[in-house]
């Protein structure tokens, strides 16, 4: 698995390179700017680009724009956006009409090596990784009529993990239950929320996020 990194902090860039290398993900390119990132991606066609949302020169939205550019024009490269703040609006902007091969995580998540590496792999494989903070923000959003209230606590947990982009297998491991049990919860949730059941995990992510956002 090959990755490129765009991060302007040397400390983090080196740390990430080492971390990914130690976990079997080869960092084929690392750079500081969005421009260099796009060149790297076009040239190296990595499986995944890990992008800091705040890049030089203005430290505004260069990173995000580069990520959207890759999503639009380099379908073979998945994008994982890292940021020191997570915003529902930014997540929706990044996903637009598909959660395939897209991730948006708080930078803090790097410290949880196992989870972070799993998220990188998931995104690189065409799945998605949405920060738990975004999911919890959406779940806690006040609604006048709230169908989420009809969910059992367990179903809520499953919904949360599902929205983060985890597969049924991943959810089962996280909650220490069987995959069959997860499947049962999932179909119950879809029934209660009146969501059409959909194929892939990432399509499921988008459907849930859009539902929660509304």
């Amino acid at each position: 698995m090959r990755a490129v990194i765009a991060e302007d902090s040397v400390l983090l860039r080196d740390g990430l390179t080492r971390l990914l290398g130690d976990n079997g993900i080869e960092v084929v390119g690392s750079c500081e700017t969005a421009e260099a990132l796009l060149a790297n991606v076009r040239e190296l066609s990595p499986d995944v680009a890990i992008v800091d949302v705040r890049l030089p020169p203005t430290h505004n939205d260069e990173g995000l724009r580069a990520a959207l550019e890759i999503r639009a024009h380099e379908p073979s490269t998945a994008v994982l956006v890292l940021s020191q703040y997570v915003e529902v609006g930014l997540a929706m902007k990044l996903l637009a009409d598909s959660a395939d091969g897209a991730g948006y995580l708080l930078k803090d998540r790097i410290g949880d090596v196992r989870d972070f590496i799993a998220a990188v792999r998931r995104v690189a494989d065409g799945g998605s990784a949405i920060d738990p903070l975004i999911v919890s923000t959406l779940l806690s959003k006040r609604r006048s009529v709230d169908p989420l209230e009809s969910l059992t606590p367990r179903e809520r947990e499953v919904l949360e993990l599902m929205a983060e982009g985890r597969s049924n297998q991943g959810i089962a491991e996280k909650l220490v239950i069987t995959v069959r049990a997860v499947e049962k919860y999932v179909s119950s949730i879809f029934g209660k929320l009146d969501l059409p059941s959909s194929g892939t995990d990432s399509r499921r992510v988008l459907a849930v996020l859009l539902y929660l956002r509304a």
Partner: protein
Amino acid sequence: MALPSVTHDPGVSAGRRPKPWVLLACALGGIVAAVLSILMALKNEAVHGELGHPLVVVILVNTITVSYILCGTVAWWRRPSSHFGPLMIAAGGVNFLATLSWATNDLLYTVGQALDLLAPVVFLHAFLAFPTGRLRPRSVRALVAVAYVAAVGLEVVRMALGGFGPHNLLEVTNRPEAGAVVAQVQYLVVGACCLVGVGVLAARRRREGPPLHTSLTLLVDAFALGLVMIAVLFVSQALEGPALQQIRWAAFVTLALAPVAFLAGLLRDRLARTAIAELFVELRKDPAPADLRDALARALHDPSLTLAHWLPEFGCYADDEGMRVDLPAEDAPREATVIRDHHGDRVAALIHDPGLAEEPELLAGVTAAAAIALENSRLQSELRARLQDLRGSRARVFEAGTRERQRLERNLHDGAQQRLIALSLELGVLEAELDSPDASRSIDHARGEIATSLEELREIARGLHPAVVTAHGLEVALEQLAARAPVPVQLTVTMEGRLPDPLEVAAFYLVSECLANVGRYASASTATVDVSTAGGGVSVEVIDDGVGGADPERGTGLRGLADRVEALDGRLRIWSPVGGGTRVRAEMPCAR
């Protein structure tokens, strides 16, 4: 720089107003003099023979005395700044002294006879000196001087030549034939001077245009007629023409009526007051009108009026267009009145028809009104400038604060936050390398601490500056606010592209604070947030259905928001009736 030649300054002239007892003495003196004069005439047999119809002449002459002294007294009282009043009193006085020639006492007779022709010349002097009481230009002064010399000098010479009877103390020799020749010369010279005086009056009218008011026209006509009558009388006397008696009577009546015309002019003061009242009504509607000059010109009935503003930094006057204006010189056919503020500093000057000197009340009132209007407009523009300054400095202070907070946020982001993340990453790597459950637990704990620190730093950074707004725009940032709001929020954002950062940040804080308030106080069940660009600016409206009764003066939240909005030249309005929910609306213009 030509300084004002004549300054009709109401404040100054008021100080020179004569004492009431002086005026009273003048008036009584005039009446007493007339009575004495009549008594003298009645006692003196010789007067009968000389004058023919003595009673008519005596009464007419004394009417002139009383008329001039009384009118002069009124003029002095009403126009203390003009020498015209005292000059009229003097004319009346001299007219009385001339009647001393009716006395039987030698000394009195001699004085009276010597001053016999002085009175007509004083009339000439007074008429030509109208309205200021000064003789201008020099040629007019020379004319009057010649007339004085002819009237008094030649009279003394004539008396020295004898033929005046037993009371003449000046008689040196008795040659009445020579005296008659001198008398002829004397009459002709004084008569000619009077005719030239009429010419001067006519030339003045031609040069200055017709006087502003019909009463003034009448007055000047009365003066001219008086001079003509004196001239006719003297020429007739010199040439021993016919109907001398009738001419004499007509001349006396004309001379007696001139001061009455002057009094009629004084009555115009009432009209002046009306004009001033109208001006004040006009100024009340617009205390600093752009066409102040026109308003003043209307009030003064002087369409040729110039309003010249004093420019202290240039030391000169300028008109509305900024063109330099010099005040008229001594002999110019215009006059200037300087307008001063309450400190006594000049602020402007009115350059007007000299005839207005005849209406000092009007001029003083209009000048005062102009001073108020000018002061008003100066204060207004000063206030505007200060307000502009204040607005500018508030915006600068606000901007400097914003920049500083943005810098701190950036430092936090690039410094402490990155280092903590890197540290957390190192710990993760270390954990994998150690592969020991005990170490793993400790490292997990340390990472948890780091996560908490990062969360706290994030909160601080967000409080310093909403980087998301600057980086990704108001719409993205508002979605997060709405998602985390304490009540369901209906968010509508209608924006075309990005707005200047300060506007977006202000709108963000506004919505953030309002939604926080909804959670804290409103007990609302829903809220709507409406943000839209309007004319390059932005309008923000947050409405909840809570308990209302929010008071901007209580607590710093709403006040702080108002400050933030006003620093951007915007306006914040709050409607919060008790029980009726709260509506906060801010409009911020773009142009800055």
